[in-house]
C-alpha cells in the first residue's frame, strides 16, 4: 500500500441488471396491490375514455355512412331555383322543368327510377268522401293534394293495401282518379277500393283506385290525395313541377347530380337546383372530427388527472420509503438505481393502467355497439398505443418523485426512515 493508495482494479462500480430492476419494481408494486390499483385508477379512466372515444366515434362515423349508403346516398332531388325572393315553388311563374322530366332523367346511365312531384293548390278546398252533410261528424278535411308521375311510387317504394297505382295512361287521359295514403284513407273513412269509392276535392270528383299502406321515402304521401300529373293540369290548373326525384345506383349520385340539370333544362341548367347527398367520405371525416375533438379533450383531462394521481402517490411513496432508499444506498445502490426503480414503478403502473384502460375502452365500444346493433370499428393502433401512452404518462409522472428519491443523502435517509 502506498500512502496515496491508488484504487486497485478490484473496485467494482455499482450495477443493477435491468432484469433485477424490473423484478424489484414489480415486487414493490405487488407488495401493496390495493394501493397500486387505486393509483392506476386515474390512468385507467383517462386511457379508457380516450380509447372509447376514438372507438365510438369511428364506429358511429362508419354507421352514419352506412345509413347514407342505404337510403339517402342514392337520392338526388332537382328543384327550381327561387329567383325572386321567397316564393313557394308551386307559385313559380316560369316553369323550367319539362313535363317529360321523368323520361329525360331515366335515359341517364345510373338512374334506377325517377319521378316528379308537385303540390297541387286546390284553393283551400276541403276533401270529403261522401256527398252528405252529417252534422255530428267531421266529414271534410284539409288533405294535401299531390300530383306525381307514376315513377314516384317507385322512388318512394310505396306499397299498396288495396287497388292499384295509376299509370301513364291515366295521366294522358286526365282521368279523375286518385291514390290516397293510409292516413288520409282513415280520415276519409275509406278502407277498400273494389267498389270504386269517390272522394270530392272541392267540387271535383275523384275515383279512388288505390290505398298506399307504406312508403320508404316521401312519408307525406301517406296523408295525401295523390293524382296523376295530367289530371292535376286539367282539373286543378297545375302549371309547374315542384321537384324531380331520382334514385340512382349506389355510388352514382354525384354523377347524376352533375348531369340532371342539363338533361332537364339544357339552356340554363344552373337555374335548377340539384340536391345531392354529401360525399360519404366528407361526412365520415366531419362526424369523426366533431366527436373526437370534444371527447379527446375529456380523455386528455382525465389522463392528466391520472398522471397527477400517479405522481402524487409515487411522491408519497418516496417519503414513506425513505428508509428503504437509505438501505438500498447502504447495500450499494447508486443514485441512478434509486431513480430508475421509482421510474420503472410509475411506468409499470402507467403500463398496467394503459392495458386495463384500453380493455375497458374496447369493452365500452363493443357494448355500445351491441345495444345499437352497430359494427364496432377500432383502429388497430389504438389498443397497441394505449399501453405505450400509459408508459409515457407513468414515466412523466414518476420523473419528479424519482429525482427527489435519488437526491436523498443516505445518512439522512437511514436516520429518517424506519
Amino acid at each position, binding site marked *: *500500500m502506498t*500512502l*496515496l*493508495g*491508488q*484504487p*486497485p482494479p478490484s*473496485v*467494482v*462500480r*455499482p*450495477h*443493477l*441488471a435491468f432484469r*433485477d430492476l424490473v423484478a*424489484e419494481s414489480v*415486487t414493490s408494486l405487488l*407488495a*401493496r396491490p390495493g394501493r397500486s390499483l387505486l393509483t392506476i385508477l386515474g390512468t385507467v379512466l383517462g386511457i379508457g375514455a380516450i380509447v372509447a372515444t376514438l372507438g365510438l366515434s369511428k364506429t358511429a362515423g362508419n354507421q352514419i355512412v352506412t345509413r347514407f349508403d342505404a337510403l339517402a346516398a342514392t337520392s338526388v332531388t332537382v328543384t327550381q331555383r327561387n329567383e325572386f325572393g321567397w316564393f313557394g315553388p308551386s307559385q313559380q311563374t316560369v316553369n323550367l322543368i319539362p313535363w317529360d322530366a321523368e323520361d329525360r332523367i331515366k335515359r341517364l346511365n345510373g338512374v334506377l327510377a325517377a319521378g316528379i312531384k308537385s303540390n297541387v293548390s286546390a284553393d283551400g278546398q276541403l276533401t270529403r268522401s261522401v256527398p252528405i252533410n252529417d252534422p255530428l261528424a267531421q266529414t271534410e278535411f284539409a288533405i294535401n293534394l299531390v300530383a306525381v308521375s307514376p315513377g314516384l311510387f317507385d322512388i318512394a317504394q310505396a306499397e299498396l293495401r288495396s287497388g292499384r297505382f295509376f299509370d301513364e295512361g291515366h295521366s294522358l287521359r286526365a282521368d279523375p282518379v286518385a291514390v290516397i295514403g293510409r292516413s288520409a284513407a282513415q280520415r276519409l273513412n275509406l278502407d277498400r277500393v273494389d267498389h270504386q269509392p269517390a272522394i270530392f276535392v272541392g267540387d271535383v270528383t275523384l275515383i279512388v283506385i288505390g290505398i298506399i299502406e307504406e312508403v320508404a321515402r316521401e312519408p307525406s304521401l301517406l296523408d295525401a290525395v295523390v293524382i296523376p300529373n295530367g289530371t292535376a293540369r286539367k282539373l286543378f290548373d297545375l302549371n309547374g313541377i315542384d321537384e324531380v326525384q331520382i334514385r340512382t345506383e349506389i355510388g352514382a349520385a354525384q354523377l347524376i347530380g352533375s348531369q340532371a340539370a342539363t338533361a332537364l333544362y339544357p339552356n340554363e341548367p344552373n337555374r335548377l337546383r340539384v340536391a345531392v347527398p354529401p360525399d360519404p367520405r366528407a361526412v365520415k371525416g366531419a362526424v369523426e372530427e366533431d366527436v373526437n375533438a370534444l371527447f379527446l379533450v375529456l380523455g386528455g383531462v382525465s389522463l392528466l388527472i391520472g398522471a397527477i394521481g400517479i405522481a402524487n402517490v409515487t411522491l408519497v411513496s418516496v417519503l414513506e420509503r425513505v*428508509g*428503504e432508499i*437509505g*438501505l*438500498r*444506498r*447502504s*447495500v*450499494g*445502490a*447508486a443514485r441512478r*438505481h434509486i431513480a430508475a426503480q421509482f421510474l420503472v414503478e410509475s411506468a409499470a403502473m402507467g403500463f398496467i393502467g394503459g392495458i386495463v384502460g384500453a380493455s375497458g375502452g374496447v369493452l365500452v365500444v363493443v357494448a355500445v355497439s351491441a345495444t345499437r346493433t352497430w359494427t364496432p370499428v377500432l383502429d388497430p393502433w389504438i389498443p397497441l398505443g394505449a399501453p405505450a401512452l400509459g408508459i409515457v404518462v407513468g414515466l412523466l409522472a414518476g420523473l419528479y418523485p424519482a429525482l427527489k428519491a435519488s437526491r436523498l443523502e*443516505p*445518512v439522512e435517509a*437511514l436516520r429518517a*426512515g*424506519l
Partner: protein
Amino acid sequence: MPDPVVLLDRVSRTFAGTTPVHALRHVDFRLEAGEYVSVVGPSGSGKSTLLHVLGLLDEPTDGLYFLDGINVALINDAERTGLRGDRIGFVFQDFHLLRHRTVTENVLTALLYNRFPRRERHGAAVEALERVGLGHRMDQTTDKLSGGERQRVAIARAIVSRPSLLLADEPTGNLDTATSESVLEVFDDLRSDGLTLVVVTHDETVSAHAARHVRMVDGFLSETTSGRGTR
C-alpha cells in the same frame, strides 16, 4: 503483511453551520482483519459519524481513509458506492427490513447492486440465513418475525455479500436482553469465522463481547483497552 481493513489518518468531520459541529476530531484508527471492536460513548460524541465515515456513507472533511488499502478520497462517488456494496455490511438499530417482503428477498437485496453472480445468489442467501439460525424462516414475510429474528435477518443481509467489514449501529438498541443475547452470539460466531466487526453501542454487555474497545468523547477517539491478540 496485508493491508489493514481500516486505516484512519487524522480524520475530521465537521458539519458546517452557524455553530460548526466537530463530530470527528483528528481521529487515528487502525483496524486489522478479524478484529472485533466496540465503540462506546455518550450520545452526540461522534460514534454514528465514525460509523458513517467508515461505511462510506459520509466523507471526512479532513484526513485520509484507507479501506482495504484503497484511498477512498481518490475514487469517485459511484466507485465509493460500489465499494460500499461490495465490502461493507451494515446492521442498523431499527433493522431497515423491507416490509411485505420475504426474509430471503430481504437478504437478496444486498446482492442486487454488486455484480454478484445471479446463479449463486439464492445459495448465498440460504447460507447466510442458516448462519444466523433462520434457515427455517426463509419464506416468511418480515412482519411476522420477532425483533431478534428481524435483526438476525438484517445480519444475514449484511454478511451475504461476504464483506470485509461489518458495521453495526446499536444492533441491540431495540431488543430486550434475551433476544440481544441471540444477536450477540451471532456476532461472536462471525468474529470466530474471521469477520471484521465494528459495533457502536452504549450498552456495556454488548461492548463486553468485543475484544477491543474504543471510546468516543466530543469527537475524539481513545482506546480503552487494546484487545489485539486476545480473544
